[in-house]
């Protein structure tokens, strides 16, 4: 049974999320992957404003395919998250609450999630066609020159996710495999 949650996430909802929960996420989220993260953190380092306020927001590590005519977006599954580990703590400390990706995170990111009361969701890698069905609208809001790596605002409806790392330190990437290791 999946919980329905809404982005931007509210504190009461966040507190109830635990590693291993299945959720259906609706609302507004933002794509961002390698190149966009590098630019965001460069702006932070220079003391410049970010293209949009990230406080309370959810970022989705994804670089979609171009949309076919009539579609909101092309295939749009998650990319591997560890490549954003170098940047994520900076963004979490600026108020980013949620991250969606796939794969294990570094201890520094897990600490940042705890410190800021955040959450890390796993989407199903390689299910890009299926996930595209949950994206109802998409528009580039920053770094258009980066092509697929531009930051896009997505309107999503019932995006299926699993809570992978919660603010209490629960981590499905540790607990799950440990249960089945022989």
């Amino acid at each position: 049974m999946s919980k329905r949650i809404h982005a931007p996430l509210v504190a009461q909802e966040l507190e109830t999320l635990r590693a291993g929960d299945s959720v259906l996420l609706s609302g507004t989220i933002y794509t961002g992957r390698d190149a966009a993260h590098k630019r965001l953190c460069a702006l932070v380092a220079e003391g410049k404003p970010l293209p949009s306020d990230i406080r309370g927001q959810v970022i989705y590590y994804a670089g979609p395919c171009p949309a076919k005519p009539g579609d909101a977006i092309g295939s749009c599954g998650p990319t591997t998250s560890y490549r954003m580990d170098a940047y994520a703590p900076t963004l979490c400390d600026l108020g980013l609450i949620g991250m969606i990706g796939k794969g294990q995170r570094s201890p520094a990111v897990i600490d940042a999630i705890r410190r800021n009361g955040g959450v890390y969701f796993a989407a199903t890698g390689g299910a890009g066609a299926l996930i595209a069905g949950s994206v109802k609208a998409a528009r580039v809001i920053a770094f258009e020159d980066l092509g697929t790596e531009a930051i896009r605002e997505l309107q999503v409806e019932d995006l299926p996710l699993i809570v992978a790392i919660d603010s209490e330190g629960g981590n499905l990437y540790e607990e799950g495999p440990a249960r089945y290791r022989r």
Partner: protein
Amino acid sequence: MREIDVARVEETVYGLFLSACCEIGDDVLTLLEQRLETEESPFGREVLRQLIENDRLAASRHMPICQDTGMAVIFMEVGQDVHFAGGDVNEAIERGVRRAYHDGCFRASVLTPLTRINTKDNTPAIVHMRIVPGETVTLTAAPKGFGSENMSRLWMLTPSQGIEGVRDCIVETVRLAGGNPCPPVVVGVGIGGTAECAMLMAKHSLTRECGTHSEDPMLAQMETELLARINDLGIGPQGLGGRTTALAVHIEQMPTHIAGLPVAVNMQCHAARHKTATI
């Protein structure tokens, strides 16, 4: 001698990539369905169910299975009695790739490594050409995503480490990769040759029908044993825990130097895409 117009090569490359990025092979789909029956983990079953639904949806809507439509890897076996006419065959291949990625609404994922400037049309392709007897040309398109490519490893073992060392480094590669390469994976292995040759064998092994075994009985037995050991790691679909970490292990080998024992492991995500055509 047989003359083949390079336009035919272009059209073949074009068609193969349009198909490969959107239509998963029955080999992979069958293994996913079998694993859905046996997977014990509830998360694992849910992931496998989503992957099967995704793969069917992608084929029916002709949209990419995965947004990472990869680098355009091509294996090409050229009969030595073939003469290419009508232009540069290398350019024809690039045109085929460029058109397929544009017309298919596939992602432009290729860039210059240091400047990170995107080439915008997913070229250049990665072409491995080999001259063989005969007067036909066989092309295999194997678009390769980098979530799994990044988890690949080359191990230059010493002869003293022997077959046990080979087994251990293959399993260790999968263990270290965890959920990153989008398990359930196909593990491509090349043993022997030189460093670059080992990796090329590992990559080539991924073009084999998924789950079939090497014709070499010793390698076939290793594939079976390694698949069991890898699935005992517990990593499971997407790394969330389960019995299905790999769908198959494919091994190729060739002679190597007396001083060496190269082992290359090329990781392949569940979107193990490969389509072949002969001209």
